[in-house]
């Protein structure tokens, strides 16, 4: 009997650990909610910069805008792993709430939570796997699904906050959450019984009836000290988060490059000391990009001019410091050299408000043709780059010529240029 009591008590206290209380759910929930919103905002920015609506204009300064926004997107996404697990841990007993469904309202609530949890887990998992380019595990279009799920998650978040608003308000500040001895305060207002993370902790409410006497007997052994356990929980969440940022964020933030041991990309690794996303071989341009007869055609209606690489090199050359920043979150500053895009546009009489179409030698890719909006065309930092980091552009970085503009994602910095058309 005594053993049974011990075991049942272990099970009980493992489920109702001191870190599992509404205050902790609010504390972790705030952090996770913030991380979700940061991911959503930066994700939306990245989406529309790739698929802009007709009226949209994007800033070209600061030059690191996209680099930082996408670096934050990926880093905050990685941080969602410990935060989401911590949040789920704090409300774990909810899984076993009995009866499983009490009313239609309760059913809706549980269904929306199930959708929220599943969408969040899927979102961060496919996001991480996409940065590893493990496409075989994602047998659906990643970008579209990731985009659709982001609305599902933020919508579920809004509903979740609405349902839990009373609890969130009560446990928002610490002084309203715990008694002097560290025991969690019972909800002051009548909480809907269905929200059982708000259920008062067992040690404050004796149970009645035969089952109640059994439960009380199980709980007769002392509970772990609440305050140190809670502090310990927060310290663990903080330590895991700090470790993840320290050991992975170096792919996006140069400051942490020295401690980048787990990110899928490493600064300075690659041809021209830069990582590569799509190689010349993968883009099937090995022949066309090395063809001695290569010319860059610049066209404005009937006006058409062709430039050999030597002719491009003979134009006024400019050197700019711009980051290459991938949608996958990695980025690196580089020194680019070549003629300005606007000089080439002007050579065929483009007007200041004209957009350009940059066409790559690459054949079957949705990014083989990109539109360059006037704010980028006219920017003095936008180049048709022929050299990078003091060397001739490597074939994998877009030789013979590529686009580089401030504040644009890497996929739009068209490599292996074949023609530029004024629209």
């Amino acid at each position, binding site marked *: 009997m005594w053993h049974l009591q*011990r075991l049942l008590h*272990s*099970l009980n*206290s*493992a489920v109702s650990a001191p870190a599992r209380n509404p205050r902790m759910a609010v504390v972790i929930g705030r952090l996770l909610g913030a991380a979700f919103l940061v991911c959503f905002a930066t994700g939306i920015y990245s989406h529309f910069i790739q698929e802009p609506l007709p009226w949209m204009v994007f800033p070209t300064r600061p030059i690191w805008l996209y680099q930082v926004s996408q670096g934050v997107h990926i880093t905050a996404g*990685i941080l969602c*792993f410990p935060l989401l697990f911590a949040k*789920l*841990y704090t409300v*774990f007993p909810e899984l076993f709430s009995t009866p499983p469904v009490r009313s239609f309202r309760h059913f809706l609530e549980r269904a929306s939570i199930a959708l929220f*949890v*599943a969408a969040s*887990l*899927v979102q961060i998992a*496919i996001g*991480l796997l996409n940065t*590893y*380019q*493990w496409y075989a595990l994602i047998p*659906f*279009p990643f970008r*579209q*699904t990731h985009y*659709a799920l*982001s*609305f*599902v998650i933020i*919508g*579920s*978040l*809004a*509903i*979740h906050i*609405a*349902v839990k*608003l*009373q609890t969130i308000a009560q446990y928002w500040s610490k002084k309203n959450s715990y008694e002097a001895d560290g025991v969690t305060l019972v909800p002051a207002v009548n909480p809907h019984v269905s929200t059982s993370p708000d259920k008062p902790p067992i040690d404050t409410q004796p149970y009645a009836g035969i089952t109640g006497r059994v439960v009380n007997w199980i709980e007769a052994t002392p509970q*772990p000290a609440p305050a*140190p*356990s809670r502090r*310990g*929980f927060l*310290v*663990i969440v903080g*330590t*895991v988060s700090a*470790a*993840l940022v320290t050991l992975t964020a170096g792919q996006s933030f140069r400051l942490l490059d020295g401690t980048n*041991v*787990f*990110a*899928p*990309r*490493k600064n300075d*690794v*690659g041809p021209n000391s830069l990582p*590569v*996303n799509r*190689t010349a071989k*993968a883009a099937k341009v090995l022949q066309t990009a090395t063809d001695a007869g290569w010319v860059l055609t610049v066209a404005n209606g009937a006006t058409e001019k062709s430039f050999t690489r030597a002719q491009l090199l003979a134009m006024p050359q400019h050197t700019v410091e711009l980051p290459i920043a991938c949608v996958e979150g990695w980025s690196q500053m580089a020194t680019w050299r070549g003629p300005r895009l606007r000089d080439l546009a002007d050579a065929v009489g483009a007007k200041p408000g004209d957009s350009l179409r940059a066409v790559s030698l690459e054949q079957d890719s949705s990014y083989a043709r990109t539109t360059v909006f006037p704010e980028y065309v006219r920017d003095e930092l936008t180049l048709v780059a022929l050299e990078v980091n003091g060397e001739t552009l490597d074939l994998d970085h877009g030789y013979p010529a590529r686009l580089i503009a401030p504040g644009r994602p890497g996929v739009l910095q068209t490599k292996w240029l074949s023609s530029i058309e004024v629209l």
Partner: protein
Amino acid sequence: MRKVQIGLIVLGVALLAVGGVVLLDDVAPKNYAAILLWFAGAIILHDGVASFAVVAVGIAMRRLGRSFRVPLGAIIIVQGAIVLGAIMALIVFPEIIKKSIGRANPTLLPLDYGLNLAVFYAVLVVATGAALAVYFAVARRQKVRPLDSHA
């Protein structure tokens, strides 16, 4: 509060609708089965596997702690190390596996993740040991001079 709740629910339902429309619009129906499979997998892995593993570890730690009269602080330190090690494995193991299967180019997954993880675990073990040593030293001092804590 009621107004805020209603506003949030309206906003939430609207965003869910946007998500649904985007999914129906941009993702071909042939992909829905795979997405559903991912959702089901997430629920099963979390609710059915990970949750129970966490509870089992929690119970084991408590029982061990009680059998050997390990103080709560020491248990938390060890639990923290286990959690850190597990989450790092979750992030890094897929990199090791993907790299061994093959990658698009050598600048993707360029590091020796297995070696780095081993070094990380070695550092974690040493750091955990050091934290436990400090914890027990402080606890012993407080026990020897219990009045100090009230000073």
